[in-house]
């Protein structure tokens, strides 16, 4: 914050503004200066967040238990430790798998429910509430329910037994081959409703005449969905990609409450790694900070990448359309 202060105060000086603004446009001085109106938001948000990031970067070069304990500078050791820790790479792998599966399921499920509930169906608003409940109720509140569904004598195994697939029953949460799957399925369960709300809203904006024109041209339901509806809600899909990426990177609640990242770190995520480092009695805040910095770099880099690529694609499409019109 301190480094930011002198720069931010200067431009607010009224004479500095009047001088420059007045030369360019006569109207400008009529608009009152408003720097102090954005100060609260800047201080709370930009201040706290940038402070945390910078401080995080600083701590990440120390071996530090927090509080009054001594800070031992250890250079890049925390980063080296992270990159050579097999658990870290498990967490990265889990994040990628989680992101890909949940994103795909959310898009498919969200589009399906949105399209279905935009059709004439009986009790539509009841279905809507059922789909959205998992989004609004805290994962922390629902976690005990998920444990009951997936544990050895839980609902899933009971269903399997009752349909004659008793051979498939297993301890879903307690074995390292299936724990990640449980976390991912719970993630899908909780996020389809979010995709649904967004697609449902976006589909309301689509011009019904366009759909009608498609029908007149003989397009079936699926054809309309893929050729007319989906291209029109693409902005939503791109937003969902970025939001899901962030969700996967910071995933904590469900994992911690259902599997605690285990067994044997099989369902570890970066969020749970950072938390357990802070909560442990032999904590190293430096290591937790190094992991945070890595997470941040991944989050920023990938969301910029997604945004750039989608912009590039959009620009290409616009160009193509323009070229088509010119011809």
């Amino acid at each position, binding site marked *: 914050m301190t480094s930011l202060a002198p720069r931010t105060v200067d431009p607010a000086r009224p004479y500095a503004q009047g001088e420059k603004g007045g030369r360019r446009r006569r109207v400008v001085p009529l608009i009152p200066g408003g720097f102090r109106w954005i100060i609260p*938001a800047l201080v709370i948000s930009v201040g706290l967040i940038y402070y945390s990031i910078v401080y995080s970067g600083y701590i990440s070069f120390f071996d530090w238990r927090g509080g009054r304990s001594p800070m031992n500078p250890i250079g890049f050791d925390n980063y080296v430790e992270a990159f050579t820790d097999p658990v870290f790479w498990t967490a990265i792998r889990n994040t990628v798998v989680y992101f890909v599966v949940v994103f795909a399921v959310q898009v498919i499920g969200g589009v399906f429910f949105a399209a*279905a509930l935009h059709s004439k169906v009986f009790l539509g608003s009841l279905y809507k509430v059922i*789909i959205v409940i998992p989004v609004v109720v*805290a994962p922390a509140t629902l976690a005990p329910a998920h444990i009951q569904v997936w544990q050895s004598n839980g609902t899933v195994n009971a269903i399997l037994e009752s349909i004659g697939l008793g051979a498939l029953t297993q301890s879903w949460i307690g074995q390292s081959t299936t724990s990640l799957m449980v976390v991912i399925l719970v993630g899908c369960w909780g996020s389809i409703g979010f995709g649904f709300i*967004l697609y449902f809203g976006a589909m309301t904006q689509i011009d019904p005449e366009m759909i009608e024109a498609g029908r007149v041209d003989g397009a079936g339901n699926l054809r309309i969905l893929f050729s007319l509806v989906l291209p029109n809600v693409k902005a939503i899909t791109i937003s*969902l990609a970025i939001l899901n990426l962030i969700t996967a*990177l910071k995933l904590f609640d469900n994992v911690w409450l259902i599997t605690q990242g285990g067994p044997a770190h099989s369902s570890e995520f*970066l969020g749970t790694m950072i938390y357990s480092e*802070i909560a442990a009695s032999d904590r190293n805040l430096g290591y937790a900070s190094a992991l945070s910095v890595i997470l941040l770099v991944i989050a920023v880099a990938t969301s910029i990448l997604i945004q750039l690529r989608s912009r590039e694609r959009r620009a290409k499409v616009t160009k193509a359309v323009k070229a088509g019109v010119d011809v």
Partner: protein
Amino acid sequence: MFETRSRTSRAVLQIVLTIAVIPFLVPIYTMVAKSFEGAGWGNYAAVVSVPGFFRFFLNSAIVAAGSIIIIYIATMMAAFGFSKLRIRSKELFFWLMMAALTLPEVVLIAPLYSTAVALGLLGTFWSVILPIAALQIPFTVLIARGYVDGIPDTLFEAARLDGAGTVRMFWSVLLPLARPIAVALLVLVLINAWNAYLLPKVFLINDDMGVVTLLPEFFRRQYNDDIPKVLAAAVVTAIPTIVAYIALQKQFERGMAAGAIK
């Protein structure tokens, strides 16, 4: 979207939809059914009569109310400033704020933890309210600014010609006109603050400061894994959120939809 001219196709769609909804009901059904195992309603009576049970709700309400007040004031002021007032290098400040738009909260935990320890803020509601506000403000400012941009400048000019100062313009023109978006955003903030888990878990370390998301763990300790009571507690915790969602469906969905267009 799907056209269902014939009665059969309508029935097929209805059946497919019903089957697709079943997985959503399984955990909820399990939660409710198992919460009655053993003592039946007695589980609920036991949960509700645990001393300090309502304290969890009160604490969540404090966190939510604190976040909402701070976010509302900061957001509306900033939206006004960014949209209608003259600020040098305005877009630079806006960009600085937007860069934090999709910041995962977990990266703040380590630095904030050590800062909270140093400042003696550990175990105060501020240690949760401020980070929640900090993380939500970029998003609420983005949406609110977009909305305020849509309010014609002439309204503000007219107010100024009538002798209104900046404060008066904010109070009598901006706040009333921006109310629809403010409500949608605040419903979203309410849900996010109410459902926050990681921040309270790390910072609200005192026993009497638990929030509702920490209830399941509290009951697991309290009842030594007496599952029906843990689930009864979860049901009681989920009900206010579900009621709030059903009552505020429109605002809630508008807020979420606004959030996705960032």
